[in-house]
């Protein structure tokens, strides 16, 4: 795919595909066996093993909640296991803290950013004793330009923070680098650069443990994959063409049936004729979003595609009532609407699934309270709750999204994917007119993704309009009827869903003139010119920060 190296021929351990805990070959860089961890009644890891050879990129695979993050946290000393052995360079170790792990050569980029929000980047680097020059070099290589080291971290967008996290880890020159869903929050252009950098590590001194739910990324950069299921290592696989199926099978156990190719296959919406649910006319937000106009019809899933910081955040903020537009007009079901608060939007039937779970969930409350939250917000609903009715509604939503609620007393105990489902379930439980989804499948496993696609199509079929921003371009073809591409705060292209393949979308996202076929190698050059375009358009500094 995206100009990343083809599978390098790393000597494979075994061609049989699956070996339960491959008998240790000499010179393993990192080896963990029998690692277990429980949280109260929840067993996060039962018996996990991982063996990493020098110079390999090793995928750690598993469905949501399989225990991947837990294993990485244990390996880098962020939490303590109940049992298990960890050996680095063949020597057994107990790691008490990330700082200690780092001294042993183990460094992780965790699923959530680990940058101190109230310190500037320079201070963050000093805190972690990261050498400055290598850091700069890595930041540059990873495609983050014009990073101002004196900016406070809390003022930087999530994607920049992820890149900073990664560059910082690389600058430390670790022996084993663990990346927990590094690419989930990145726009396509940055993902590409990250994969490239990871690919370059292959065959060197350093090993990478790579976690991602995107099979395509695994195929692109990984040599081997360890698969976790329900806290247990169920297999180690050589990644070669065609092993995808095998990995998925291992991940999900016996339950896999053929995953539908296109979630929306069955539906052929009369998109052209249905009444518009949402009409956006000339919406602007300062300099960041300029003159956005489109229609979202009942029964339609409309994709939104953009590189990082092209105005999509502002668009969704305006539509969800979080921010007032500086100009333009909004119609919901043909009636003019003006949202001063998310409550206004919700009242009008326009609901928003935020991408950042930390932003959307009451982490210390139950799944049930989280899902039922929107029902009680209006003053009229402050009185006694009809508990049986609530239970019915919530149970239906939980069932529909197949949420694992065993740790549901407190949402923070759920795995990332299940948390994500809760954020969606909240809106599925009530009736929606317009569903705004901002990267809803971020960090979600392959099966759940399929469920969400089906769900979005179902909702559309039931009459809702769905607006779906996605950073995973493949999704557009899978679920969207149409897609619009935003660049520099403007809508620059509209495509029909079925035709919107990745190449098309990327080209549009970089705002390249159509017609020219983009050779994969030319991506870099394209980036340069795209950057130039933004400059001319006078995009403010914040947005210009991340340009591939």
């Amino acid at each position, binding site marked *: 795919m995206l100009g990343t190296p083809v599978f390098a021929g790393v000597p494979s351990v075994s061609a049989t595909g699956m070996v339960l805990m491959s008998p240790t070959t000499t010179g393993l860089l990192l080896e963990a066996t029998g690692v277990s961890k429980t949280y109260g009644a929840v067993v996060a890891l039962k018996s996990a093993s991982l063996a990493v050879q020098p110079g390999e990129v090793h995928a750690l695979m598993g469905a949501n909640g399989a225990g991947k993050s837990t294993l990485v946290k244990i390996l880098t000393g*962020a939490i303590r296991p109940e049992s298990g052995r960890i050996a680095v360079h063949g020597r057994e170790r107990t790691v008490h*803290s*990330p*700082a200690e792990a*780092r001294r042993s050569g183990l460094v*992780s980029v*965790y699923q*959530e*950013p*680990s*940058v*101190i*929000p*109230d*310190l500037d980047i320079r*201070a*963050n680097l*000093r*805190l*972690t*004793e990261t050498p400055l020059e290598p850091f*700069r*070099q890595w*930041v*540059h290589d990873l495609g*983050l*330009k*014009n*990073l*101002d*080291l*004196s900016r*406070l971290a809390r003022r930087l967008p999530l994607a920049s923070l992820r890149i900073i996290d990664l560059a910082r880890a690389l600058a430390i020159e670790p022996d084993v680098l663990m990346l927990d869903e590094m690419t989930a929050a990145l726009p396509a252009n940055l993902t590409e650069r990250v994969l490239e950098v990871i690919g370059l590590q292959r065959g060197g001194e350093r090993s990478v443990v790579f976690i991602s739910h995107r099979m395509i990324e695994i195929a692109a950069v990984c040599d081997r994959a360890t698969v976790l299921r329900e806290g247990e290592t169920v297999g180690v696989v050589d990644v070669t063409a065609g092993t995808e199926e095998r990995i998925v099978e291992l991940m999900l156990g016996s339950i896999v049936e053929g995953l539908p190719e296109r979630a929306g296959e069955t539906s052929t919406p009369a998109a052209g004729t249905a009444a518009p649910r949402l009409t956006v006319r000339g919406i602007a937000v*300062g300099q960041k979003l300029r003159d956005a106009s489109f229609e979202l019809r009942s029964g339609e899933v409309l994709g939104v595609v953009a590189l990082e910081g092209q105005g999509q955040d502002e668009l969704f903020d305006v539509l969800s009532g979080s921010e*007032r537009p500086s100009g333009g007009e909004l119609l919901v079901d043909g009636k003019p609407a003006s949202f001063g608060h998310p409550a206004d939007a919700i009242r009008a039937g326009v609901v928003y699934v935020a991408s950042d779970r930390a932003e959307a969930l009451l982490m210390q409350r139950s799944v049930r309270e989280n899902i039922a939250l929107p029902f009680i917000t209006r003053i009229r609903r402050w009185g006694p709750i009809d508990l049986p009715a609530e239970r019915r509604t919530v149970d239906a939503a939980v069932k529909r999204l197949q949420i694992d609620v065993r740790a549901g007393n407190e949402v923070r105990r759920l795995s990332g994917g299940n948390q994500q489902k809760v954020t969606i379930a909240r809106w599925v439980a009530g009736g929606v007119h317009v569903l705004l989804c901002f990267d809803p499948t971020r960090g979600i496993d392959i099966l759940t993704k399929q469920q969400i696609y089906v769900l979005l199509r179902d909702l559309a079929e039931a009459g809702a309009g769905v607006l779906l921003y996605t950073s995973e371009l493949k999704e557009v073809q899978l679920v969207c009827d149409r897609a619009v591409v935003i660049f520099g705060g403007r809508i620059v292209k509209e495509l029909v869903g079925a035709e919107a393949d990745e190449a098309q979308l990327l080209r549009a996202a970089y705002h390249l003139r159509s017609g020219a076929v983009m050779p994969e190698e030319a991506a870099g050059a394209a980036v*340069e010119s795209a*950057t130039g375009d933004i400059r001319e358009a006078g995009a403010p500094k914040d947005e210009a920060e991340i340009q591939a």
Partner: protein
Amino acid sequence: MSAAAVTTERSLSDVLVSPIRRNTWVLALLGLLAVLLVFTKLIQPSYGLAGVQGLGISILPLAFAAVAQAVVVIAGGVDLSIGSVMALTSVIAASLMEGQSDAFGVAVVVGVLLLGVVIGTTNGALVVITRVPDIVVTLAMSFVWAGCALLVRSAPGGAASPWLLNLVIGPFGNPWIPKAAIVLVVIVAIIWIPVARGRFGLSLYAVGSNQLAAFRSGVSIGRTKVLAYALTGLFATLAGLSLTASTSIGTPVPGPYTLESVAAVVLGGVSLAGGRGGVFGPIVAVVVLQIIQNDMTFLNVDPNYALVAQGVILIGVLVFGSVIEIRRARR
């Protein structure tokens, strides 16, 4: 746009603008202070040397207390035992120094400062070890330290070494410069600036800003917190010694410094959520509060309405600040 060099150089405007942008609140406070001084001169034309000298010595205990509170609040905690620690260290110092030589007095000051560090460390260690929220531990410890102060002496008394009084009372060189102000600025600068510049300072802000991220960045949360409390204990002891120095005695009953220090810290631009602010803002806030107090006297405001006015001003300044903040966020 070619090499890495371009990407990370700081432009001149960044160097100049960002410290101003980051210290807007403190600068605004300094502005308020200037306005208040002019206002004071207008309502009380005779305001001059005596006023400034009185101001200098008056703010000393609360200023140190505010610095003490600021340190721990920056680290994401809060210390409700500052008033009690001040009382305890102040009675110990005054009791030991009574009728002793100057040299012994110096030894007492050093010893009491060390004790303050021990007290602060105890607070911090309890917070870290018990994992009970800071506010609970320090609230409970405020009873313990106040009780200890009463054990030391049941009534106010003792005496400060004369040199200690001379250290803070009166002018320094120029009659307009109070010694107390010099003492305050020098001590705070000597202790705080190296701390803030060093790795420990970074850790303080890191822990206050986001504990998880700090831990993952290799900061030892426990050690940082304990050290923060130790530093707070040290500054609280300096506040207690200023009490002894300005009143020449030790009082076992804690004064109103705990809550006042929290108020000063918030007024001084330190976020109670941790991770943001510095120690100089709170000092300016203390000066502002004291001048307001003086102006009430000059204006002959009825004491009860003065109390009301104090509450309204406290709220008003913060309402003003957050209205500005909300406006800015809208834009």
